[in-house]
């Protein structure tokens, strides 16, 4: 965590249509439509609904995500998470109970 504790939590009633960019951890509890670029950790909480193309370092999905994800480290679809889209990341975790539809590319040759 680089010792830096800043995190932005977009609460459950927040709806954004457009682009979000940031260099701090981002937790989404509301609805986002568009594009997200993060250099840190991105979490889609259980109340979160995201329709976006995502570029990030780490991603954890407990809510609903539609869109393609490119992560430089890790993507995890947690047990209550649902995701439709393609994942490109060196490490991918899909937990027991999670729902997922799409392609996964871990960069294996």
């Amino acid at each position, binding site marked *: 965590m680089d010792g830096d*504790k*800043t*995190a*932005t*939590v*977009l*609460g*459950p*009633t*927040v*709806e*954004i*249509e*457009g*682009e*979000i*960019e*940031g*260099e*701090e*951890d*981002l*937790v989404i*509890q*509301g609805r986002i439509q*568009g594009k997200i670029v993060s250099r840190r950790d991105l979490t889609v*909480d259980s109340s979160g609904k995201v329709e976006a193309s995502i570029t990030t370092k780490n991603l954890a999905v407990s809510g609903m995500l539609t869109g393609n994800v490119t992560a430089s480290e890790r993507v995890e679809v947690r047990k209550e998470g649902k995701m439709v889209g393609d994942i490109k990341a060196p490490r991918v975790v899909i937990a027991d109970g999670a729902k997922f539809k799409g392609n996964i590319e871990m960069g294996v040759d």
Partner: protein
Amino acid sequence: MAKGENGNGQAKATTTAIGPTIVIKGKLRSDEDLVVKGRIEAEIQSSKALLVENSGIIKANVRVKSARISGVLVGNITAEERVEIAPDGRMVGDITAPKIIINDGAAFRGRIDMQNFDEAGEGKAKSEPVASAPPPKAPSTGGDHNAAANAK
């Protein structure tokens, strides 16, 4: 609601704080208080309060219940209750609200419309701008043009 794991201090359930490195473009709607420390180039619509902190920059039109600006806002504000520009706040744009406070030290350029100017009390604070009100786009000064242009 908000997981208390972040450094947001008092875990107020209904506040979203947008951190200093965050940039948002597009459109933003919310029904909770918003604290902006980053940069927002997105039309904001909120039924609650907006707080633009020192490091916060907003370039867009804003429609909220109340607003307090300690950072920078370029764009027009329509507030149901009040707008306050703090001593360190800077704003270019038009304000429409029943209560408007500009503190000593604040920088402001634009037009102010306290809707119910001639009706004592706040009874009508929530009514839509009356027909007799000047059209919001009327360019009263050159500054408005800049405001609109910058807001993009």
